[in-house]
């Protein structure tokens, strides 16, 4: 059970990235990374599979990683995470950026000579259009991640290569929010008329990335050809082929049969374990900002009662969950508090132990029996009778979702709740979940990024996209905004801790474990670094084949 080894200088680095310009920093970071023993070879076709078909190509409108994976080699973002150091940003379309002294104005200087795949040059108008489309999409276009730019007050383009973003309040994490791997830059000339029709960029890809979409056949193949006019120089690979293969075991078989070179999404540990024994194959698992929470619907009785929610938390043996569900869902990791494993903002053991049930996290030596006795007392006090029926909504066609729920239901039985799993198909599941028609739901929530604003903003605010439990808590939201705009790192750290303590006390969401993504690739694939956040390093520009 590897623990993440992120440097503790995390916060400092981030602040540096914010206060100084980014270019110099990025140069030093990449110098070390490039000093490799082998020189990359040119040519070849990389064959990968990440799961099923993307529903469409509109990365800004989508909510699934499948679309982002298809878009990543073709699009660019303003900045991107440095593959050598996850806590730093390096330039992508923006070669430099400045933040004003009050922290409320950010100026991006765009790189010169960037062209879209159709040959037209990138200008600040394209950036403004794309960011506005995220923040405030035109009619008929949706923007699931508009919260990322929720703090933006206005975006202007004073020059063809300058973009100025005014913020409502200072936001230390803003540069990371705007560089979210989903926040790709579209060509205004291409996207605007399509957006007006309501279709958006669903049917085509027109970006500035190192590859451009070639042949694409739904259910069969997505092919990317090298774009030779990429501003960063042509990629090493001639071509990338992505095959939509849904089942993990089938993807494992394809890797083993040498039909693909890499596959990046394996929840199930047995498949990886099997691949690890294959000669010439690397199989790894890394903790990623994806957490598994049990979420009660607080509008429904008796879950409106915090005692009942605390009882749920007390009932759960997190260590046992990680041991049993871990190998099935890749949920091997744990964290103290709401932020990912290894975060500088993690709570101490003493702090987390004051919340019911969290002392069963691995290594904290909690007393499960005492917890469960206490849970029964709380239920009794809340007027919940022995054998009370509760149901866990689960999605049937994703084994990892289903297995989490099975384990939780079994554990809840120990405090006298008659818990059953209500398995639905994808269509019913998502509709019931988003409209709050459930009692309990438990599944993994994947977030692109590990910073407090990213995790807390999307996962733990009333207005965030993942508030399935329908709770409303203004004091928490205010606390979130306060930490978000605090420029002093020490003070901000205090606020982040305060937020976590306040949130944990409400038991609106009950954390069980953190997920690590599994990836496996043939050793002939070089130049790919497994970042903690899989979304961030998928443009494959530096990847090459040693064949």
């Amino acid at each position: 059970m590897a623990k993440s080894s992120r440097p503790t200088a995390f916060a400092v680095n981030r602040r540096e990235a914010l206060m100084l310009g980014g270019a110099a920093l990025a140069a030093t970071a990449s110098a070390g990374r490039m000093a490799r023993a082998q020189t990359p070879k040119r040519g070849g076709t990389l064959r990968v599979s990440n799961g099923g078909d993307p529903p469409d190509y509109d990365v800004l409108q989508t909510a699934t990683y499948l679309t982002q994976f298809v878009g990543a080699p073709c699009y660019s973002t303003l900045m991107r995470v440095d593959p050598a150091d996850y806590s730093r940003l390096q330039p992508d379309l923006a070669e430099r950026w400045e933040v004003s002294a009050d922290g409320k104005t950010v100026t991006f200087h765009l790189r010169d000579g960037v062209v879209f795949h159709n040959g037209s040059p990138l200008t600040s108008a394209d950036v403004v259009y794309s960011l506005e489309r995220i923040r405030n999409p035109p009619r008929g276009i949706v923007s699931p991640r508009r919260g990322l730019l929720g703090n933006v007050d206005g975006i202007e383009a004073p020059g063809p290569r300058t973009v100025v973003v005014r913020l409502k309040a200072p936001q230390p994490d803003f540069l990371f929010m705007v560089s979210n791997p989903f926040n790709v830059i579209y060509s205004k000339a291409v996207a605007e008329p399509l957006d007006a029709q309501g279709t958006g960029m669903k049917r085509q890809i027109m970006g500035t990335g190192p590859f451009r979409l070639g042949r694409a056949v739904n259910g069969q193949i997505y092919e990317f050809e090298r774009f030779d006019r990429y501003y960063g120089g042509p990629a090493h690979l001639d071509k990338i082929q992505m095959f939509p293969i849904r089942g993990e075991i089938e993807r494992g078989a394809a890797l083993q049969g040498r039909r693909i070179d890499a596959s990046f999404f394996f929840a199930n540990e047995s498949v990886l374990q099997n691949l690890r024994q294959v000669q010439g194959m690397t199989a790894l698992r890394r903790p990623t900002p994806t957490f598994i929470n049990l979420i009660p619907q607080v509008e429904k009785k008796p879950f409106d009662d915090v005692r009942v929610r605390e009882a749920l938390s007390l009932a759960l043996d997190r260590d046992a969950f990680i041991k049993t569900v871990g190998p099935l869902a890749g949920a091997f990791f744990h964290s103290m508090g709401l932020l990912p494993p290894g975060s500088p903002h993690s709570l101490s053991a003493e702090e987390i132990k004051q919340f019911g049930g969290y002392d069963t996290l691995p290594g904290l030596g909690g007393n499960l029996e005492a917890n469960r006795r206490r849970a029964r007392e709380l239920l009794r006090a809340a007027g919940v009778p022995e054998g009370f029926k509760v149901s866990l909504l689960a999605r049937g066609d994703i084994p990892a979702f289903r297995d989490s729920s099975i384990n939780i239901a079994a554990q809840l039985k120990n405090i006298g709740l008659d818990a059953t799993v209500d398995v639905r198909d994808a269509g019913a599941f998502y509709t019931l979940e988003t409209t709050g028609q459930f009692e309990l739901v438990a599944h993994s929530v994947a977030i692109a990024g590990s910073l407090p604003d990213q995790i807390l903003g999307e996962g733990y605010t009333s207005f965030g996209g993942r508030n399935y439990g329908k709770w409303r808590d203004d004091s928490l939201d205010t606390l979130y905004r306060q930490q978000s705009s605090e420029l002093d790192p020490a003070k901000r750290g205090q606020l982040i801790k305060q937020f976590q303590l306040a949130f944990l006390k409400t038991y609106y969401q009950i954390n069980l474990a953190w997920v690590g993504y599994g990836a496996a690739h043939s050793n002939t694939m070089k130049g790919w670094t497994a970042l903690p956040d899989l979304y961030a390093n998928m443009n494959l520009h530096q990847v090459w084949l040693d064949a």
Partner: protein
Amino acid sequence: MSAPPAAAGSAAAIAEPADATTLLPPRPGRLSRLLRMARQQPLGAMGALVLLVMAVFAVGAPYLAPFDPAEGDPTALYVPPNAKYWLGTDAFGRDTLSRLIWGARVSLMVGLGASLLGVVIGAAIGIVTGYHGGWADTVAQRVMDALLAFPMLLLALAMAAVLGPSLQNVIIALAMPIIPRAARIARSSVLVLKATPFIEAARATGCSDARILLRHVLPNTFAPLLVIATAYLGLAIVQEAALDYLGAGIQEPQASWGLMMSGAATALALTAPWIVIFPGIAICLTVLASNLLGDAIRDLLDPKLRRDYP
């Protein structure tokens, strides 16, 4: 089993109805008769034996299963078959043998339930509309045709999604595709019967329609319906497994054979093959047994049915 190839064929085959009931009542020397039948139909006897064993498992699951099928032992995950866990344990540390035994209950209930429900409803529709004829018959026929044309597993999948997950809903969902097939067979039997002097005589003696249907028509359609019921029993078990595979079938923590070999379990096929192999064998054996028994029943009741229910 598929529908009989052509309604025309079945009409010809049942032209001389065998009185099924006369074969069934117990007579002296029952045991020796049974043995003789078993010798005549060794495969059928084997099928009956396997089904009997499965039925014993299903009924006696609470007493026979060595462990609780839903309660896992967290200290014994992925344990290969050994002296304590004869068929090993699964990813949750649950005993495979106990889950197989409890799974027999689910599979047999689904198989029996779906085939009986489908055949009874289908036969009722077929017999009544076939006997009365007229516009009701025409409408019923078109509806049955539409159900027949609807892909079978898709129909079950959609029904399961509409009704929500539970054992009884899976039974209803799997009975749906059986209804039109049973109705078709029952109807064609009735059409032939209607034309025979035997029914006309009953009518002439002043029997009511209901009485004719119950006393004369129903017993004479019994043989083909029993044959297809055994065939659909097996098919329903296989289809239930397919529904489980698609995530729309029986729900955990209930044990079902299909569930045991789908979902995350499939990923274990290489590292812990016992988790996937044994439930598959259980399904094969049971379905095989029900088909063999069906064949034997068919041959004993009326060998002429062979042509239509091979």
